[in-house]
């Protein structure tokens, strides 16, 4: 299947749009319901982290999401926000912060997650799905 690119404004309202679009692509690629649920969570987490990063810095640069299925699904989410230092792992009452829960979900929903600084500034999160 061809490569698909979706660019969204860095606003929370668009995270659901990406989730729906990629679930639809996943269905076309023959993913089963459980794999689709995992895909939706992982895509949502990566996009949420990107969008919240932009909101923190007040950036309007779009977030780029790419989908590729060449024998396995790979999704990349690239933002152009100047990310803050990683947040604390726990709050004052010992609960995990949202970022920690987000990373736990990402790591268990995909075969592999790579987060790297992109050459254009910002961060690329690459999600490799097994199937």
């Amino acid at each position, binding site marked *: 299947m061809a490569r698909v690119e979706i660019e969204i404004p860095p606003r*929370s*309202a668009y*995270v*659901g749009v990406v*989730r729906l679009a990629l679930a639809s692509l996943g269905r076309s690629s023959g993913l089963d319901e*459980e794999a689709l*649920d995992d895909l*939706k*969570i992982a895509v*949502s*987490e990566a996009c*949420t982290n990107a*969008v*919240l990063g932009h909101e923190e810095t007040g950036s309007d640069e779009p977030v780029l999401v790419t989908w590729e299925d060449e024998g396995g699904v790979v999704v990349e989410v690239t933002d152009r926000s100047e990310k803050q230092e990683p947040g604390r792992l726990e709050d004052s*009452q010992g*609960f*995990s*912060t*949202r*970022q920690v*829960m*987000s990373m*736990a*979900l990402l790591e*268990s929903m995909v075969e592999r997650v790579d987060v790297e600084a992109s050459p254009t500034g910002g961060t690329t999160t690459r999600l490799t799905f097994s199937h």
Partner: protein
Amino acid sequence: MELGLDVRKVDSHAVVDVKGEIDVYTAPKLREKLIELVSEGSYNVVVNLEGVDFLDSTGLGVLVGALKRVKAHDGSLSLVCTQDKILKIFKITGLTKVFPIHESVDEAVGAAE
């Protein structure tokens, strides 16, 4: 994308029936509703997730925040959930140890009495 929130009283509990998808866009609406309940004096809250199709870390963050609020008033926050795909999210993040999770609203209300 709409998030449905209906609040009803069952015994001394405020039960919030949530319908739809809880993500970064809709989670603030749930947070506001839960803050409103606590500020009105409802410290024993049951959040019914049976109508929820999707939940991610932003929704979990809101539930943890609400739990802290009710605990500050010696209250309780329990969940109703039987859907495997939603339970999986709580298991992965270790929150099954933090929230009492029940199979029905009646069970949740009875357990917290």
